[in-house]
């Protein structure tokens, strides 16, 4: 709980109905889509303008209140979880499309604007916004910017950082600064380039300029069933090394197929196939037919059981829904699940899938696999039952082992979900102490008091973490909000 006078000050900035602070009101904001860790926010505010965001942040600075920005709360790594009882600054009411310039192929949105709504608004003129995370019907572009969100089609079109060209940002000090260039290259350091993907630790974007793309003339979607996972993996490698750049290459394994086929989006996958590939190519009609045929040929070389092209838009949409609804569908076969987001070099796909299967046997927990095979971004879903004592811990342990496996083969612990709270320990597995120190230096430039989404993305050096834990428990005795504990002067060695 915040002091009366601070609530009053927040109400003064955003009006009374835009401040929530009663426990029952703020409960919904105690985590994002990563539900393993929860913590109540001190309050939730809903600003409607850049100026309001700036004033809220300045108030937080004056009062040393930790704060964090929040979009739709669909993040999968705990980036919006108020672990310090932070003040949650929800951007949900900053949901306007500010400008569209079709001739110059740019749009300007507020951070709470929903990803898919942008595509819908510009579709009539044949345009779309390329980054397409599975949650695109609800997730916001501000959240996408913070997480550098990807999606199925980023294999060809790139992730959020390749599409955001400029942003107005409220820095952790409350100062408002414009970053980037709507056209051309950055002038000076590419600061926008580090703000994108900074998980809300370097500031809050309040106006975002993005590229909008012309829809391709033709799209072909190919579905292929494989008896063996190895054949499917080899097909992916062969497609890529043949010089084809597909718009997307997605794979699901047997367990995953069974789960989605039980959902509303029933494709009717044969029960005995080990893998399904969904490959999409787009471009000029004159070329796309050829490419789709070449892909079918590569599938056949790799012992495909069945391969065919979507006969119409409805079938294509069904195949995609089946893929995009994979995460929620897992609920149909398992009471609980944990999703990972490791990335590996494509060439290691077969090897890594085999190792994941071994881990699954070792721990006695089922692991369903759905992934962006084209860019080696795995989403293993570890199935468990939280009611059985110890299973959750076992599931988390497999998750960690999978991430370490990804790093061991030269990959990364996260391709698009972000580090957040969830993978913060694995950062030290992937990066050296010096590498992490360089990242901390950058954070300290933007966020010197570490009030802005503190405790996310980059682990504190071990010594400091222990020190802080001691401070935290001491502080909590004196101050139930635990609020004043992250002042920089308390740990000079950081």
């Amino acid at each position, binding site marked *: 709980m915040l002091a009366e006078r601070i609530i009053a000050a927040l109400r003064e900035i955003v009006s009374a109905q835009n401040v929530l602070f009663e426990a029952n009101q703020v409960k919904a904001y105690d985590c994002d889509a990563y539900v393993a860790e929860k913590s109540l926010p001190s309050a939730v505010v809903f600003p409607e303008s850049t100026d309001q965001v700036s004033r809220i942040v300045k108030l937080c600075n004056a009062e040393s209140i930790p704060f964090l920005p929040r979009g739709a709360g669909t993040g999968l790594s705990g980036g919006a979880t108020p672990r310090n009882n932070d003040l949650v600054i929800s951007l949900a009411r900053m949901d306007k499309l500010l400008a569209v*310039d079709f*001739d*110059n*192929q*740019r749009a300007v949105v507020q951070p709470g604007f929903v990803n898919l709504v942008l595509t819908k608004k510009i579709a009539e003129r044949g345009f779309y916004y390329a980054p397409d995370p599975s949650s695109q019907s609800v997730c916001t572009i501000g959240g996408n910017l913070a*997480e550098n969100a*990807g999606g199925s089609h980023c294999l060809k079109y790139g*992730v959020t950082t*390749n599409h955001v060209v400029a942003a107005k940002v409220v820095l952790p000090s409350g*100062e408002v*600064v*414009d970053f980037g260039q*709507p056209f*051309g*290259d*950055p*002038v*000076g*350091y*590419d*600061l926008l*380039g*580090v703000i994108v*993907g*900074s998980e809300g630790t370097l500031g809050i974007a309040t106006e975002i300029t993005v590229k909008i793309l*012309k*829809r*391709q003339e033709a799209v072909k979607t190919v579905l292929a069933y494989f008896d063996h996972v190895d054949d499917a993996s080899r097909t992916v490698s062969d497609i890529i090394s043949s*010089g084809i750049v597909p718009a997307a290459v997605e794979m699901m394994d047997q367990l995953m197929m069974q789960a989605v086929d039980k959902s509303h989006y029933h494709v009717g996958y044969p029960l005995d196939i080990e893998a399904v590939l969904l490959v999409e190519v787009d*471009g000029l009609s*004159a*070329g796309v037919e*050829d*490419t789709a045929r070449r892909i079918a040929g590569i599938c056949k070389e790799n012992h495909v059981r069945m391969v065919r092209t979507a006969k119409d838009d409805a079938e294509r949409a069904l195949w995609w829904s089946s893929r995009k609804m994979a995460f929620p569908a897992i609920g149909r076969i398992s009471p609980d699940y944990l999703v990972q987001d490791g*990335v590996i*070099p*494509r*060439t290691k796909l077969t090897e890594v899938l085999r190792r994941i299967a071994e881990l699954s046997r070792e721990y006695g927990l089922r692991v369903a696999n759905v992934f*962006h095979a084209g*860019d080696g971004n795995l989403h293993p879903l570890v199935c468990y039952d939280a009611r059985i004592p110890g299973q959750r811990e076992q599931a988390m342990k497999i998750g960690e082992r999978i991430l370490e496996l990804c790093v061991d083969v*030269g*990959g*990364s612990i*996260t*391709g698009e*979900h*972000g*580090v957040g709270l969830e993978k913060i320990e694995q950062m030290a597995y*992937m*990066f050296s102490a010096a*590498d*992490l*120190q*360089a*990242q901390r230096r*950058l954070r*300290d*430039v933007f966020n010197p008091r570490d009030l802005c989404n503190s405790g996310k*993305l*980059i682990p504190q050096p071990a010594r400091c973490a222990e020190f802080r834990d001691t401070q935290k428990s001491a502080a909590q005795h004196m101050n139930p909000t635990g609020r004043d504990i992250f002042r920089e002067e308390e740990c000079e060695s950081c």
Partner: protein
Amino acid sequence: MEESFEIPDQRMQNALKSCVGSDYVRADSQLAARISGQREPVVSVFPGDADEVAAVLGLASENGWKVTPVGAGTQLGFGNIAQPIAIAVHTERLCQVVDYSPADMVVTVQSGMRFADLQQLLAKHGQMLGIDPVCSRAATVGGLTATGSSGPARVLYGTLRDMLIGTRIAFADGELVRTGGKVVKNVAGYDLSKLFIGSLGTLGILTECTFKLKPLPPYRELCLLGGSTAQVDALRSQVMGANLIPSSLELLATERARGGAGDRSVQWLLAVGCDEGERAAAFQTRSLQQMASAVGASFTVLRQEEVAQFWERYRKTLESSGLVLRIQAPPTQLVSLAADIDAFSAAREVRLFHSFSLPSGTGRVFATVPDDPAAILDFVGAVRQRCGELGCESVIEKSSLAIRRRHDCFHSHRLGEGELAVMRLVKHAFDPRDILTPMKFAGGI
């Protein structure tokens, strides 16, 4: 100048020799003039690996010696005039491929590797790094990264910003750090790699770069559409609005294309490429031909080897330009702005070449610097004034000392004090003693 050449600090040379070996340290009077026109001599060091680069920086930091990284030394005219430099760290010996897995379409190379050599190696595997900047054959990967180079292909393939996925960099304090990773998709930690693109050696010295690659297009076609300012602007709008996939949409104007003496109407060429395969190219070419004939523009098509030769000639022509201005404006304004710039140059008898990547909103003006610096200074002033009136950007990428003495290369209408302040803090965080190429960058960094 022989007479101004002094024996450099012997202690510094000895210390550097202990880092990299005595064969790889030498005083260099010529380089001094080329770096910043300074009178003080520069000591060149040639580290053999990343650890030696870091050791040199650590030593320089302790002593407050100013350092600048040098690749092939072909782009030293970039940016503002730096403070006098004591040590040039050459990446010449860092020229190995560290890691190349063609099936993963990712390559890691040392920063001193020549870009041309890299492309040649990748081509053997049917791949490429998707940039085509105007640069010397000697230009290095690290140099192109530090100058943020790009060319006409950015319209389809993007810029280094879209390709550089990881680095190894030596910071001023002698710490060797990895940023990013070696897989095509990765959001673990801050994307620090982006800071080094176009940073002109002011934050650290790149020792390795990891890039995402593209398949080499199996077939290439290039349509050249020629016409007046109004004609090419109409074509730009049509091409951008159509369902075509141009691999370039470059607005070019040459001396030759400008017509005979007294012909005041500029003639332009739009170079529209297709990398999508033979059948798609045939379709795109037909569409472009119809557009050209509808507005009365001329039309030529080049195929395969001819396309490569066209761009090769283009790069050869522009490579030695002494002045390069980068203009940034909405595509809808770029063509008329190019025409304005052309008029300024004609009035001042400055010879120039336009190369505007229209959909990206970026254009470069390449000029030979005449003997009369007043004319070129006047020209630069006129261009910048016009860009200012339109709220567009005009960055001086490369220029002569005379121009750099008069103009801040990074003068920008959008780059505000707030953003500059953060940039200065970033510089201070990574180079607190300000030893790396000071004053060369934006905002006196």
